[in-house]
C-alpha cells in the first residue's frame, strides 16, 4: 500500500482559502465588514511548531497555545504523534480574539498535523515549507516519543530555537540539552524558566553580599532539574561561595513537589522559603513575604518565546551541570 501523502502546497492553499472565508463571513455566515472598523487581522510574529503526544489532552494543549497568541501571535503548527498505523493528516483552523473595546478580531492560524511516529522524517519535510518566512521559528518539544526518535535531528533543523521541559516525564536530560547547545541550537528549558522569579528575588538579596555557603533544600530524595539549575546558577554567579544541595530537608509546614527547591539558606542567617505559594524571606531580624507569579506553562512558554537569541546565563548554568 503506498504511503499516505500530505503536500505542503495543498495545506498552504487550504490556509489561504480558509483566510478568505474567515475574512468574508463570520461563524454565523454573515458578511464581515471590511476596513478600519471591522474585519480581522491576521497576526503572525513567528512560527511556533509544537510536537505533542496524541495522548495529551487536546483541549488543555489548545488552551495553552491559545493563551500564548495574545503576546506572541504565531503561525502555529501542532504535530500530534502517535504509535501504530501509517498516518499523516492535516487540518487548518485559527484562534481568534477581540481586544476589549475594538471591533476588529485578531486571528492566528493553526495547522494541526497528525502523524504516526514512523513518519517523523516526512513530517520534517512537510513542516519546513509551512513556516512563515523571515520570522523566528520556535520548536516546543512536549512529546516523549520524539526525543529519542531517529529523525530528531531533521526536526531540530526546522527551528531557530528549541524549547524543552526537562521536568516532564520522558523529556531530554541535561546531557541531551547540552548536546543541542553544542550543535548550535538556541535552546530553552522550562525547568530553568520556572526559576526566573526565584532568581530575581535571590539576586536582589545577594546583591551586596559575599556569602560563604548556600544550601538549597529540596523535597524528596532526588534533586529535580530546577534545584540543580538553581545550584549551578548560584555557583557560577558566586564562584567564591560553596553552593550545595540537600534532600528531604523540607520543613513540616512546607509543601513542594518532589525535587523542586523548597528553601535556600544563605550562610546561617538567611532563609528563603519557596514552598508556600509565594516566597518568605527570613533573616532572623526581618521576615518578609514576596508574591511569586504562578509557574503556569503559558507563562513559562511566553517568557521563553520572548527570548529568541541565546540565553547566556542559562547556557553557563547548564555547562556547569554537564561539565
Amino acid at each position, binding site marked *: 500500500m*503506498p*504511503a*499516505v*501523502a*500530505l*503536500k*505542503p*502546497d*495543498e495545506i*498552504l*492553499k487550504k490556509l*489561504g482559502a480558509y*483566510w*478568505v472565508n474567515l*475574512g468574508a463571513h463570520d461563524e454565523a455566515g454573515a458578511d464581515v465588514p*471590511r476596513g478600519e472598523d471591522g474585519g480581522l487581522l*491576521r497576526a*503572525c*510574529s513567528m512560527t511556533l511548531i509544537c510536537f505533542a503526544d496524541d495522548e495529551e489532552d487536546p483541549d488543555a494543549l489548545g488552551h495553552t497555545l491559545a493563551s500564548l497568541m495574545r503576546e506572541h501571535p504565531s503561525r502555529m503548527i501542532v504535530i500530534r504523534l502517535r504509535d501504530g498505523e501509517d498516518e*499523516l493528516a492535516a487540518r487548518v483552523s485559527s484562534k481568534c480574539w477581540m481586544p476589549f473595546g475594538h471591533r476588529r478580531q485578531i486571528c492566528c492560524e493553526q495547522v494541526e498535523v497528525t502523524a504516526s511516529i514512523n*513518519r517523523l*522524517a*516526512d513530517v520534517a*519535510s*512537510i513542516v*519546513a*515549507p509551512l*513556516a*512563515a*518566512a*523571515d*520570522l*523566528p521559528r520556535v520548536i516546543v518539544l512536549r512529546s516523549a516519543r520524539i526525543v529519542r526518535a531517529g529523525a530528531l535531528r531533521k526536526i531540530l533543523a526546522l527551528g531557530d530555537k528549541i524549547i524543552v521541559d526537562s521536568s516532564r516525564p520522558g523529556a531530554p536530560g541535561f546531557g541531551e540539552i547540552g548536546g543541542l547547545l553544542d550543535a548550535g541550537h538556541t535552546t530553552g528549558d522550562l525547568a530553568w524558566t520556572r526559576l526566573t522569579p526565584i532568581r530575581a528575588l535571590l539576586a536582589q538579596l545577594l546583591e551586596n553580599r559575599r556569602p560563604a555557603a548556600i544550601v538549597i533544600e529540596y523535597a524528596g530524595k532526588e534533586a529535580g532539574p530546577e534545584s540543580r539549575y538553581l545550584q549551578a546558577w548560584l555557583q557560577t554567579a558566586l564562584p567564591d561561595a560553596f553552593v550545595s544541595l540537600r534532600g528531604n530537608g523540607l520543613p513540616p509546614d512546607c509543601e513542594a513537589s518532589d525535587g523542586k527547591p523548597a528553601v535556600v539558606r544563605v550562610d546561617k542567617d538567611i532563609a528563603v522559603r519557596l514552598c508556600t505559594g509565594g516566597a518568605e524571606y527570613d533573616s532572623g531580624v526581618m521576615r518578609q513575604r514576596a508574591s511569586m507569579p504562578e509557574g503556569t506553562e503559558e507563562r513559562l512558554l511566553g517568557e521563553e518565546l*520572548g*527570548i*529568541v*537569541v*541565546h540565553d*547566556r546565563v542559562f547556557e553557563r548554568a547548564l555547562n556547569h551541570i554537564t561539565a
Partner: protein
Amino acid sequence: MVIFGANGDLTKRKLMPALYRLAYEGRLAPGFAVIGISRTVMTDDDFRARMHDSVPKFLEDSPFDADLWRSFAQGLFYLPGDVGDPVLYQQIVKSLEEVGKEHETAGNVLFYLSTQPSQYAEIAEGLGKAGLAKGAGWRRIIIEKPFGHDLTSARDLNTRIQAHFEEEQIYRIDHYLGKETVQNIMAFRFGNGIFEPLWNRRYIDHVQITAAESIGVEGRGAYYQEAGALRDMIQNHLLQVMATISMEPSATFSSDAVRDERAKLLRSVRILKPEEVAENAVAGQYGPGRVGGQQVVGFRQEQGVNPESTTNTYAAATFLVDNWRWAGVPFYIRTGKYLPKRVTEIAIHFRSAPLSVFQSADGPGETVPNLLILRIQPEEGISLKFVSKRPGAGMTLRPVSMDFNYGASFGERSPSAYETLLLDAIIGDATLYTRQDMVEASWCAVQPIMDYWGAQKFDFPNYAAGTWGPAAADAMLARRGHVWRTP
C-alpha cells in the same frame, strides 16, 4: 483571433478560459471570433464541445455562465490542417473573409502561435506568403516562448518572421510580465517616492529571485529534457523580472519607453567569460526523494527521459549589472523543479545599519539587514522586514514583518496573466510584451552558461527531490558572504 495549436494544452488551460473571462467582463468586441487550427480533424461543433469541457475546469476564480457560453461559442470556429501545407493558408484567407463578414471584424486579425516552437517561422512565412500579414484592418502575431533555443536561433527566427511582419506587429509573449504582481513592481517603484532613492548599490546589498516549483516534470519529461531550467525559466521569465526590478524609470509609460529601459538594463548585464561560469552558475538535476511523505522518482527515471540525461532541472546564476546604479550588486536567480514549495519571490536585501548601538550583556548586538519581499505567487503581496523593540524591560530587538497582501487589500479578483496580455494585444499595447532586442540581450546573458554547461560532464543527480537544490548553489552565494533566503 486565429489560434495555431488550438487542440493543445495552452489553448485549453489558458487561452480559452482567458478569452471567455474577457467576454464575461464585456471586454471583447461583440463580433469577436476565434478560428482554431490544428492537425486534428474535427468540426466547429466538436471544437466548441471540447472548449466547453475545458473552460469551466480551468477558469480561475470565476463563475461559468452557461448562457454567456452559448453566445461566446457561436464565435468559435475550427479549421483542420497542416501548418506546412500552403493550402491551409488559403483556407484561412477564405475563413477570415466569411467570419469577418458575419461577425463584422473589420479585417482585424490576431494570430496566436501556440504550436511547437520549430513551427513558428514556417507559420509566419505561410501567413506572409498568403498575404495574411497585411489586410484591411490591423494584423498582429503573438508568439509563445521559447523564442529560439539559443542566441543564433533566436536571431534566425526573428529574421524569418520579420521578413513578413513588422516589429510593431510582433508580440512575443512572456506571461510572467502579465502577472499583476510583476506589473505592480513598476507601480511600487515608480508610483511611490520613498523607495526609488534607496534603489541602488549604496543601500541594496544584493537581490535574490526565486522561482521554485514543488512538482517534477509531470509527464512533460520529453519536452523538458530539451529545454532545462535555464532555458525554460531564467532566459525569459526571470531575466525579465530582474529587468523590471532594476531598470531605470521610463520617461513615460508608453510601450516603447518602458521597453527601451528594460532592454537597456538587459544589455547592461555582464556577460560571463568562460572561466567565470563555474563560480557564477550552478546546474542541478533532481534525484529520487520524498515529497509530501511520498517517494518520488528522479528526473532520469521519469517517463520519456533519457536515463543518462544531463538536463538541468535546477539552475542558479549570479548576474551583475554594469551600470552606475547597480555596479557590484549581485542578482542571484534560482529556479528548479521539486523544491520544497511552490513560490516565486524577489527578495531585496538592504545593507545592514553601519553600527549596532544596541549592545547586549554578552557583546555587541547584531545588525539585521532589512529585507523587502515582492511575492509574485502564491499570496501575492509585499513584505518589509525590520527589527522592533520587544515590549518590556531592556532593549531586546526582534525581527517583525509588515505585510501588504494583494487579495486582502483589494478584495477583488486579479485577472490572469493571459487575460491581461491578450487584451493588451487586442488593443495594441505591447508594453508587457518582449521585443527582439530584449530577447537577444537575455540570450546573450545566458549563452556563455549554456556553452560552458554543454561542454561539462555533470555528476547528476545532485539534489534530492523535495530539497532546496544542490550544495554548490549555497557555495555560490557563500563566496560573496551571502546565503539563500528560505521563502
